[in-house]
């Protein structure tokens, strides 16, 4: 008979540590604070309460959010282009979350790519409206009469319907006392929680205040974007922009990316780039390609802002009893930030309910979701760098346009370039998947063909004519 090995001192010690870990489980009566009631905070609270309810765990969730999303303009808005990606629309539907018509300002059916060498419209692969253009708050500053409802307000409603309390207070500081996080309010009061989810985005000073909870966290790197809302009539916006998002690949110095998004009686202009300033915004709006698509003389700008964009967190977004979600933690590079808020918010909630709230628990069960995003962003950087090179050469712009136009015109043609552009602009697919698409022999062959066609567009035709003759 074999004897079981004697229990070592180390084993006994580790069992104590394991038992000690139990203190990191949420129990009946546990209190969870969510700092920030944007998409990440609301998704987190909604799933936390839904899952806790499923296993009969009775917890209290306080969402701290000073912004009231029913206000028009900056007071009620978490500044963003307001595109909910195709993949997130589908995931939400699968979760049983249907975005109401009063929240979605425009169902998007296609993306039109504008270049100096021509335009191409890329239709949704399934020919249906699976992308939502919406407002995060209650619309632009002068949107009082527009029939809108805030997206962030709608998500917050889902969280409160599940049992979360919304506290209209700004958190001014946070500290650790006896192993518990304490949140501090403007009036000097402080409250302790069993878990703090940081969902304050990147446009707030709060993420610079976490040193006391974890020395290992560094705020994400950021860059500025620019958003401007133009007002006209619904009919006119529909006439100019239709049901499409319009994106621009232009060779203007320092210009990286811009899109114009129709939303009822408004159109949102979004610009992203490392070196954005007023001069570049003017150069863009006055570029002949932009003017022929969207003449801004008759449509005044009624609201504008320059919010920060998360360009990547440097360290792991968690510690004992603290987890960073959405933009405060890890998000997707340039695209689908709301989708990333959903993914990280839900993953953090799942970890907290089913595994615990220690650093070890988040490392094991939350980090894999973040790691997938981080790894995918690495590929995304390569894709954006390649796109910048292609966009800056007239030859490759022509080749991209030629290839995509041919695919769109021919029924049944394999949409190599169209899929790439669609996924790149809509942010629906992981960057890894897009990259794989570019390695497909069909993509490479057709691109080379298109490049050579763009090199000798006229002489080619002459050659063919001569041959025929």
């Amino acid at each position, binding site marked *: 008979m074999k004897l079981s090995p004697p229990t070592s001192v180390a084993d006994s010690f580790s069992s104590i540590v394991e038992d000690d870990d139990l203190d990191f489980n949420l129990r009946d009566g546990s209190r969870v604070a969510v700092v920030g009631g944007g998409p990440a905070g609301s998704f987190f609270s909604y799933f936390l309460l839904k*899952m806790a309810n499923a296993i009969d765990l009775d917890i209290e969730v306080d969402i701290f959010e000073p912004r009231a999303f029913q206000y028009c303009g900056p007071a009620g808005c978490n500044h963003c282009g307001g595109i909910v990606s195709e*993949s997130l*629309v*589908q*995931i939400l*539907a*699968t*979760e*049983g979350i*249907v*975005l*109401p*018509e*009063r*929240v*979605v*300002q*425009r*169902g998007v059916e296609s993306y039109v790519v504008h270049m100096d060498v021509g335009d191409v419209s890329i239709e949704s692969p*399934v*020919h*249906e*409206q*699976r992308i*939502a253009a*919406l407002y995060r708050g209650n619309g632009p500053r002068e949107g009082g009469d527009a029939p809108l409802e805030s997206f962030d307000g709608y998500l917050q409603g889902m969280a409160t319907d599940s049992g979360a309390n919304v506290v209209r207070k700004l958190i001014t500081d946070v500290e650790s006392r006896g192993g518990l996080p304490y949140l501090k309010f403007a009036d000097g009061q402080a409250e302790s929680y069993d878990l703090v989810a940081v969902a304050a985005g990147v446009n707030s000073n709060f993420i610079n205040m976490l040193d006391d909870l974890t020395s290992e966290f560094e705020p994400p790197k950021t860059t500025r974007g620019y958003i401007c809302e133009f007002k006209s009539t*619904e009919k006119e916006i*529909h006439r100019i922009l239709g049901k499409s998002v319009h994106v621009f690949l232009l060779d203007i110095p320092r210009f990286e990316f811009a899109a114009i998004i129709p939303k*009822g009686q408004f159109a949102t202009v979004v610009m992203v780039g490392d070196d954005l300033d007023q001069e570049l915004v003017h150069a863009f709006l006055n570029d002949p390609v932009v003017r022929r698509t969207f003449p801004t003389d008759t449509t005044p700008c009624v609201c504008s802002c320059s919010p920060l964009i998360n360009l990547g967190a440097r360290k792991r977004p968690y510690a004992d009893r603290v987890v960073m979600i959405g933009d405060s933690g890890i998000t997707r590079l340039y695209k689908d930030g709301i989708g990333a808020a959903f*993914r990280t918010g*839900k*993953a953090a909630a*799942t970890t907290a309910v089913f595994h615990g709230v220690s650093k070890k628990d988040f490392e094991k069960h939350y980090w894999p*979701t973040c790691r*997938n995003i981080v790894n995918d962003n690495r590929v995304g950087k390569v894709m954006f760098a390649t796109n910048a090179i292609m966009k800056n050469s007239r030859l490759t712009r022509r080749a991209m346009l030629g290839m995509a136009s041919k695919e769109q015109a021919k029924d049944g043609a394999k949409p190599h370039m169209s899929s790439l552009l669609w996924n790149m602009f809509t942010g629906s697919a992981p960057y890894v998947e897009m990259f794989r698409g570019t390695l497909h022999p069909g993509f490479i062959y057709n691109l080379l063909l298109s490049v050579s066609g763009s090199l000798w567009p006229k002489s080619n035709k002459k050659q063919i004519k001569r041959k025929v003759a």
Partner: protein
Amino acid sequence: MVRGALGKVYKDGEDIIQQGKTGDSMYVVQGGRVEVVQKSEDGVEQHLAFLEAGDFFGEMAVFEKEVRSATVRAAGKARVLKIDKKALLTRIREDPLLAVNLLKTMSHRIRYLNAEISRHKETHL
């Protein structure tokens, strides 16, 4: 229909999926109402259910490669969103809990069918 509509609009009576046909997508009703009907072997069409916003159908195609077991058509103007099988399964791999909502509905349907079968047996005894 209004500008903020997601999905595709189907006319009253238009088929969205057809019994006996293959398919690899699931659908979620976004607005309006759809009717689920099934043809028996003798060709008689039987009403099974009405589905409304938030309800889904065609989910079996995501998990098995069988032909559609029923026809679903718009009852009045309806708006329906198509869910790609590949995208859904990829997401379920990262987040298995995404399947819970599907399982919940499928389990409701089994419960409903069981009740229907017992009712049927009772009336034929």
